[in-house]
């Protein structure tokens, strides 16, 4: 078959997208681009003299890692959760409480934060047995508000509205995690590991089952896929990744308060995933990272930024999802000709 007979939607000849075909070359270029970008991130502190810039990048990495974790629940399993920021908060509170009030060493607290996030995800995921789509979003909204109120008022454990201040300096295997450049590297490592995990996971049968369940759970079940287990796996993994990110927040920031984990935090993460293109890992990093970076750098424009986000959402809706992914990340995301990024969420 000549390439002109059947072209993929992007106009690329089908033949070139075959594994091991011409597409390989495009893939290796993408690998180089990613390698250069990662190297630049790891070397940046040597050249950055401004502490402010370092901190901005630290938050950028943390938010990008959060967004990548949310991709599993939102993008792969299609669960419209507005609670990712809450599970992040659960991880943060577990860590903060354990290391300040109970003297638990950080590595243990870190693991328990992941477990806490996963359990939170599973509790919320129970609702997917009954409700889907927009209704699941509403349930997760209630979950987010309930946990937020708990953080605010369960003084004995959460220290109420003031949260945790003066969290002891954390270290992992003798390496101190807080401090400006240590915090930078900690968050960068978190982003790297989260991305590697999600990327590796995205190639498994379980990840494909999640996509099948998201797009047609009827067909998925006729294929022998357990839809509920698949959704719960997505919620647990997403929750665990959020919990780990929460632990890292505690390790790198000096305080934790309920305000970090309100509805807006969860809403933003969901927004970044949608703008990034739902099931796109590079899209999630680009959206979560760039939007954080821009909001931090242009704080003096904060009154406009909300409006700009609104415009982005409208574009995302009208282009059926995936603004950034269609422009930039999709070229990187394409592997084995797979293109998952331009599909709007389906109820």
């Amino acid at each position, binding site marked *: 078959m000549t390439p002109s007979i059947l072209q993929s939607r992007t106009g690329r000849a089908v033949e070139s997208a*075959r594994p091991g075909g011409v597409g390989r070359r495009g893939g290796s270029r993408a690998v180089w681009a990613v390698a250069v970008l990662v190297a630049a991130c790891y070397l940046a502190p040597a050249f950055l003299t401004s502490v402010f810039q370092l901190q901005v990048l630290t938050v950028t990495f943390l938010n990008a890692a959060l967004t990548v974790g949310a991709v599993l629940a939102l993008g792969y399993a299609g669960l419209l959760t507005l609670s990712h920021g809450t599970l992040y908060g659960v991880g943060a509170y577990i860590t903060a409480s354990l290391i300040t009030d109970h003297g638990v060493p950080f590595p243990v607290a870190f693991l328990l934060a992941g477990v806490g996030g996963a359990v939170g995800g599973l509790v919320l995921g129970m609702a997917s047995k009954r409700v889907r789509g927009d209704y699941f979003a509403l349930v997760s909204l209630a979950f987010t508000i309930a946990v937020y109120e708990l953080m605010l008022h369960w003084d004995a454990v959460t220290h109420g509205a003031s949260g945790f201040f003066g969290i002891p300096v954390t270290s992992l295997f003798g390496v101190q995690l807080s401090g400006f450049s240590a915090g930078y590297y900690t968050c960068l490592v978190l982003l790297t590991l989260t991305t590697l995990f999600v990327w590796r996971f995205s190639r498994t*049968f*379980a*990840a494909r*089952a999640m*996509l099948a369940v998201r*797009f047609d759970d*009827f067909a998925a079940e006729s294929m*022998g896929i357990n*839809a509920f287990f698949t959704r719960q796996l997505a919620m647990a993994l997403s929750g665990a990744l959020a919990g780990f990110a929460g632990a890292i927040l505690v390790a790198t920031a000096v305080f934790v308060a309920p305000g970090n984990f309100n509805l807006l935090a969860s809403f933003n993460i969901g927004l970044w995933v949608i703008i990034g293109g739902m099931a796109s890992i590079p899209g999630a990093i680009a959206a979560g990272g760039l939007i954080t970076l821009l909001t931090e750098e242009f704080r003096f424009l904060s009154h406009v930024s909300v409006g700009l986000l609104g415009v982005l959402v409208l574009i995302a809706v009208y282009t059926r999802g995936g603004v950034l992914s269609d422009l930039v990340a999709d070229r990187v995301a394409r592997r084995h000709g797979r293109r998952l990024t331009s599909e709007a969420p389906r109820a």
Partner: protein
Amino acid sequence: MLECREISKHFAGVVALDSVDLTVGAGEIVGIIGPNGSGKSTLVNVISGFLPPDGGEVLLGGESLSGLSPTAVRRRGLARTFQNLRLIEPISVLDNLLVGLHLKYTNNNDRYWQWLPATFGGRRARQVDREARELAHRMLEEVGLDHLASERVSNLPYGQKKRLELARAVALEPRMLLLDEPTAGLEPTEAHELVRLIVDVVAASAERGLLLIEHRLEMVLDLCDRVIVLDSGRKVAEGSSEAIAGDRDVIRVYVGDEGVSDAAEG
């Protein structure tokens, strides 16, 4: 192989199936014909576990399928296709087939945690992944779609989607296969090719039973060892293709003019 005993199903007072008996032996191809609304698709949905029957029992290889979910029915070796295609459109052809192979590589033996080794590497996991992909490519080759393996399903023409759904259904070599109007919406030439594919690929296994629901009379009579005629949820005739084909009156009376004109078209 497959045995239906007095299957009944009502929808809000409307009788969709009225004590339908049916058997499909190993290696046998049985066709079901009948006009729209005669209960053909309801029967498929009941057998495959998507609808619970109001009465009667479905047995597969002597084992009751009553009360089992579609997932559980699939695990016992009964696969189906859908009248309206149900492929996962936004992902690639190869990935769709891999979804069809899900059971074999994950939870067939409760290997729910297959994603763990697959995510964290390990030579064994990589080997399994390579095997699965090779098998998927072989299946695609058999239905003539391997050159489109990396194409998004939504970019495929309808006829090729039908082929893909067929390949996905037989990927795990089910012992019983239900095809719900496999040639619906196809051009006569495409339909003819698909029938050939069914003979070559689907019915290739001597052990596999095949239940075929069709509108095209000619195709059913060509392909099937035995034909069952349904009307308003009741079985009104059953016999060899020759007997049914010879008895044009049966068709005129029970399938109606539609069936006769279908036969003329097909």
